[in-house]
């Protein structure tokens, strides 16, 4: 049911683990539903220098997390934010219909980690202060 690409990413997931002192962290999903993704980002000059993930979930959840980190590494924040779940699935040569939600989760994880970074930056820049 899975493409070779999915299986390959499950076999050898890229960028597994935490990043110490990450610039952004995104946690999406719910253990009750069987999928939790945590994405860690290192960002410098608007560029995603490093991305890592931790995932509790099925084969597709792990593979989409893995490919997602690859897709965003080296990208600008804007580029990363424009990555859709379709693009994640396509990068894996497709997903079975009942697993498409994993690609949605990956998209959300990227978005959530970047938003975390942007929020922190706003605080640092004083943008977060009540004026």
């Amino acid at each position: 049911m899975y493409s070779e690409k999915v299986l390959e990413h499950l076999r050898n997931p890229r960028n597994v683990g935490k990043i110490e002192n990450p610039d952004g962290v995104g946690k999406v999903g719910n253990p009750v539903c069987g999928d939790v993704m945590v994405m860690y980002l290192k960002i410098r000059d608007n560029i995603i220098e490093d991305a890592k993930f931790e995932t509790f979930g099925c084969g597709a959840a792990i593979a989409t997390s893995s490919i997602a980190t690859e897709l965003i590494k080296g990208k600008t924040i804007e580029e990363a934010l424009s990555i859709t779940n379709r693009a994640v699935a396509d990068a894996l040569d497709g997903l079975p219909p009942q697993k498409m939600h994993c690609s949605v989760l990956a998209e959300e994880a990227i978005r959530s980690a970047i938003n975390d970074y942007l929020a922190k930056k706003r605080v640092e820049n004083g943008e977060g202060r009540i004026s």
Partner: protein
Amino acid sequence: MIYLDCNATTPCDQRVIEAMLPFFAEKFGNPSSLHSIGQEAKKALETSRHTIAQCLGAEDQEIIFTSGGTEANNLAIRGSAYALWNKGNHLITSAIEHHAVLNVFKALEKEGFQVTYLPVDENGLVDPQEFKKSITPRTTLVSIMHANNETGVIEPIQEIASLAKEYGLLFHTDAVQTIGKLSFNVKEIPVDLLSASAHKFYGPKGVGFLYVKKGVRLIPQILGGPHERGKRAGTENVPLIVGMAKALEIAQANWEDEYRHVEELRNRLEQGITERIREVTVVGKNAPRLPNTSMILVKYVEGEAMLLNLDFAGICVSSGSACTSGSLEPSHVLLSCGYPHEIAHGSVRFSLGRSNTVEEIQTVLEVFPHIVEKLRNISPFGKEAI
């Protein structure tokens, strides 16, 4: 390949294939045909029926051939619920039945029946006293599976069948996971209806049977010619029926040896896993269980991911039942046992068979801990416990 998914399906025994082969092209007649080629097929059909009846202590005419366990369950439940409609519309089953039972009851609910789904305890056991309490004057039918396909837990159907008899209820059991693995005699356990499927005992897929006790009325579900004493129409699947009879005969002749063989391997597997991997649970460990089945819950990781990684290593297992493998919900069986969702998601079912070896189990014990370690390493959970 190390195949540990025998509750999903088993390969045909070579003797079964040999028994079937002549019926595809040589003795290929339609048993309804009156000429010699048809009558030769008819004879094989009836000999197979006799063999199967003998294995169960039943009479020949009590065996109805179907296209498998699913159809047998549908025929038993829908066929008898409607046959008894005038007596009452309350039916009883359990929460942990196979979908081929549960979904029939769910459909019957929409059609005006009332269904009680008996809960199970943490071992997955139905309580006969709970069953007794659920009986109403309108109850007509109770269906409780013999052994659960996911956990291997064996339900107290002897007691339930006796109670059903006492209260004048029809009793059906889905024995798809036990026929072939255990011995079953309908004279000892007073069932009215019993479903079985050949591909679970080294027979072919697409054929099964329903035991229908003499005198039990059943509304046929597939209509057409007068096959199977009017209980199931359709040209009989002679080769597969011959194969099923052969498979059951072989299974019955050897079930005790096989029982001991797989039980020893299964116990070795479970002991090895619990020694080597922290925070694992063997489901139903304290209940009577099939000797070949081991449902293991591994904390912090998800079942499908374990399954696929085991497959990379040449080991075939299942995560819950094969039937629900497409779904996102964790096993209804594990949830019914009271396991929380996140734990139930981490299930792997090992189901052993006659050809498994100690060496294979040894390989699994070497490979599986690494897989769990790898996946726990990927997981955001459980690291603090290391």
